[in-house]
């Protein structure tokens, strides 16, 4: 039994017996977790454990799976109608007076769609979180629509999903699937999950797998053909739905959900990088999205505001809602704009800067535009010990960082011969060591958690555009670019993406604080003012760099030059480096 502390009971219904496990305080609202194929309720172990801190959590083995008994005969014993009976029996047993929050993965989600779209469950369900399992009825209409009006794009979508559904056809053949599952496939399955799906080894799958898989084949045989041929026309969800879509699901195309709003008017969308078995591979993210959605629905029942109206609306809100994002150099410029963009997408934000007041201000404003929680932290990124302390505090108080943006940086201009070793030390300490500390300390936490993440490092176009005016700065940024590339290679296995951002000329405060080596105090002031005005004339806003950063995370891009000049220089650096060397010799017009 891999659910320590679980209370077990058996619920009789329709001639079978279901094995039901309960965790958490029964006085709290109830969440019912329904597993998929070929699984048992243990697929939820990690998610359930986290949810149990706040909610009454109920899991059951679907009929014919795990320690629930199988109907006899099997054929006709797995229809969606019977599965609905089972669910209602469980719900009535564990939460007789209050509707339950339903969560389904894979076939658990397929059957839950039936539960939330039939009349007889009305009033028994408060919300539904769906993962990797569409409604067969919606799917049926989706196919019909594409067959009756086959534009090239629609045919492409049909073929795409058709290819992903290969296993569904296999499962419709008689006997063979059972033989395979009870034989070699059943033995190999855990290893297949580890290799292809990156599901961590452990107490899952359970020893009942071959039987679960053999029985569960009837889920497909009893329902798929019938429903796809004659999909229900009234399959409208009568509860708010949260749709969680893993972007790397090899069994389901994201296109399946294109028009889901028509069927589920109260829809909140979520997406995350991951494969099919996200309850195993991304339990933290899944648990917190479920928890937030349940909480939002409970609150909505009280104040009457529809949940989808309370969800953040910024770009990529589906992706970053509730995530923990840490940005360094967040008291101004690109860092602050980045913190705001993540805040608008509903992320929780830790704004780090050596300017304490500025960081606190960023956090305050972030909360006003959609961040459910935001904190300002005064830390110098070049101070290793301070960074260690910060990481410890963040991990214990706010959680493990999902997205880290190493953005703090300072400018240094002036010829190499006039740059002192003190100047070098200053710029490398912040621009390079700051990034190294961030990647090392927070990257380690991410890797140890083993649930993916993303690191963004702000390099610069100066990383590949040599110039006589910025030797030390460019060197520091070239190092950041290479560090990012190497780290990307190393962390790919752990589903942690790494991106280097190369902004170009952006209108921020950096020009006003840049040190000009060799210039006296008065001359430095003049140069700072002059460059600030030039950058002001160029007037490329930091908000657009922030947008590029969010996009880089969503698409897991390796190197992102942002402004046109940064893109132009990147192009030249690959195809005509001689031209760049020519530009490098020009004296800046100051």
């Amino acid at each position: 039994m891999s659910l320590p502390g679980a209370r077990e009971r058996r619920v009789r219904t329709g001639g079978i017996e279901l094995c039901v496990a309960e965790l958490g305080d029964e006085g709290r609202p109830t969440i019912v977790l329904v597993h998929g194929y070929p699984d048992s309720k243990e697929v939820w172990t990690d998610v359930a454990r986290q949810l149990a801190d706040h909610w009454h959590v109920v899991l059951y083995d679907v009929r014919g799976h795990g320690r629930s008994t199988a109907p006899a005969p099997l054929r006709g014993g797995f229809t969606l109608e019977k599965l609905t009976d089972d669910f209602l029996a469980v719900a009535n047993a564990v939460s007789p007076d209050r509707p339950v929050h339903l969560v389904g993965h894979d076939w658990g989600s397929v059957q839950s769609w039936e539960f939330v779209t039939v009349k007889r469950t009305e009033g028994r369900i408060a919300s539904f979180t769906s993962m990797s399992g569409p409604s067969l009825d919606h799917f049926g209409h989706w196919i019909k629509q594409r067959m009756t009006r086959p534009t090239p794009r629609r045919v492409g979508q049909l073929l795409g999903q058709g290819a992903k559904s290969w296993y569904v056809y296999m499962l419709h053949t008689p006997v063979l699937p059972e033989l395979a599952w009870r034989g070699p496939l059943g033995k190999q399955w855990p290893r297949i999950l580890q290799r292809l799906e990156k599901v961590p080894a452990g107490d899952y799958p359970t020893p009942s797998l071959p039987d679960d898989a053999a029985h569960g084949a009837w889920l497909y045989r009893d329902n798929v053909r019938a429903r796809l041929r004659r999909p229900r026309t009234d399959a409208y969800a009568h509860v708010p739905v949260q749709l969680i879509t893993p972007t790397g699901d090899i069994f389901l195309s994201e296109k399946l959900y294109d028009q889901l709003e028509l069927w589920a008017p109260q829809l909140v969308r979520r997406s995350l990088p991951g494969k099919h078995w996200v309850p195993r591979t991304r339990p933290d993210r899944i648990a917190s999205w479920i928890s937030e959605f349940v909480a939002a629905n409970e609150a909505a029942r009280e104040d009457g505001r529809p949940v989808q109206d309370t969800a953040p609306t910024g770009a990529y809100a589906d992706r970053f809602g509730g995530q923990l994002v840490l940005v360094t150099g967040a008291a101004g410029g690109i860092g602050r704009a980045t913190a705001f963009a993540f805040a608008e997408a509903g992320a929780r934000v830790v704004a780090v800067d050596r300017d304490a007041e500025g960081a606190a201000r960023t956090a305050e404003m972030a909360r006003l535009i959609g961040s459910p929680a935001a904190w300002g932290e005064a830390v110098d990124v070049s101070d290793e010990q301070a960074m260690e302390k910060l990481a410890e505090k963040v991990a214990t108080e706010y959680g493990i960082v999902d997205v880290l943006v190493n953005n703090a940086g300072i400018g240094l201009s002036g010829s190499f011969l006039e740059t002192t070793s003190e100047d070098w030390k200053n710029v490398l300490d912040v621009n390079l060591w700051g990034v190294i500390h961030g990647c090392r300390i927070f990257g380690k936490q991410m890797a140890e958690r083993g649930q993916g993440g993303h690191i963004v490092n702000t390099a610069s176009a100066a990383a590949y555009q040599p110039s006589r005016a910025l030797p030390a700065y460019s060197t520091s940024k070239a190092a950041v670019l290479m560090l990012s590339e190497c780290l990307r290679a190393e962390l790919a296995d752990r589903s942690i993406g790494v991106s280097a951002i190369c902004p170009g000329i952006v209108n921020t405060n950096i020009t006003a604080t840049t040190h000009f080596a060799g210039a006296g105090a008065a001359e430095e002031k003049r140069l700072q003012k002059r460059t600030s005005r030039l950058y002001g004339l160029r007037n490329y806003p930091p908000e657009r760099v922030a947008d590029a950063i969010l996009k880089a995370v969503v698409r897991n891009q390796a190197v992102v030059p942002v402004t046109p000049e940064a893109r132009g220089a990147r192009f030249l650096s690959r195809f005509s480096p001689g031209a760049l060397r020519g530009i490098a010799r020009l004296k800046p017009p100051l």
Partner: protein
Amino acid sequence: MTSAVKDEQAPELRGFREVQRLAYDCAEAVAARLTPGVTEREAARMQRDWLRERGVRDWFHLPFAWFGDRTAFAGFKVPLQFFPTNRKLEPGMPFILDMAPVHKGFTADIGYSGCLGLSPLHDKLLADLEVHRELILREVRERRSLREIYEDVERLMIKQGYVNRHRAYPFGVIAHKIDRVAEHRWSPHVFGFGTQSLKGLMSDALHGHRDGWSPLWSPYRFSDHPPQPGLWAVEPHLGFRGTGAKFEEILVVTDSRDPEQSAFWLDDDLPHVRRWAEERVAA
């Protein structure tokens, strides 16, 4: 005019104060009548009608109304975009009413920011405008160059986390001079601006050009001079991700040596100023 503005009680100033009050009264009256579904055009028309009923015949510029992210001038590229559109007001949306009536020969130019319903974000923007009003007055009294003051305001906005949105105005101005306007029976508009007032501005620009100052207070070199005595309609405008807020009111600049007399806000009894005072009491 320079000597006339010295004395706060001068009847001239009273005339300006009256029309400025009238304009703010109009803004408050119209704002109270804004409901979901009202369009910018309708809101502009409401201002126009309200003021016409009270004797306004000429305009420095016709009333503007901006709703939603248009309060932050999101995506504004050409001046035509300032004109009222058919955008409808929705619950939770910020709005700005901006009008410049001429009354009995005196001009006002005001900006009023509000929000339909509660918005902590909008409240924050409004509250953060207060330090700008203080900063502008302080530095004008210090006789700093207008261009420098402009840059200081902008720096403060950036420090607060905002974007300077008065940069979107023609020439990026934070203020412009206003003056008395001769009353004519017939005063046509060009692109929403009254021809009489434009004439005044043009002649100021000509004189100023000769003497090295400009009636436009901008970030450019032609504003690199100390504040010129006269009346300035000052309009710092903050933008923050689709929400904008501003105030606009008259700053009196004189050639007095007494700092207090050398510059002062024409009227301290205006809605935004009262609001700040109330917040301080509440806090």
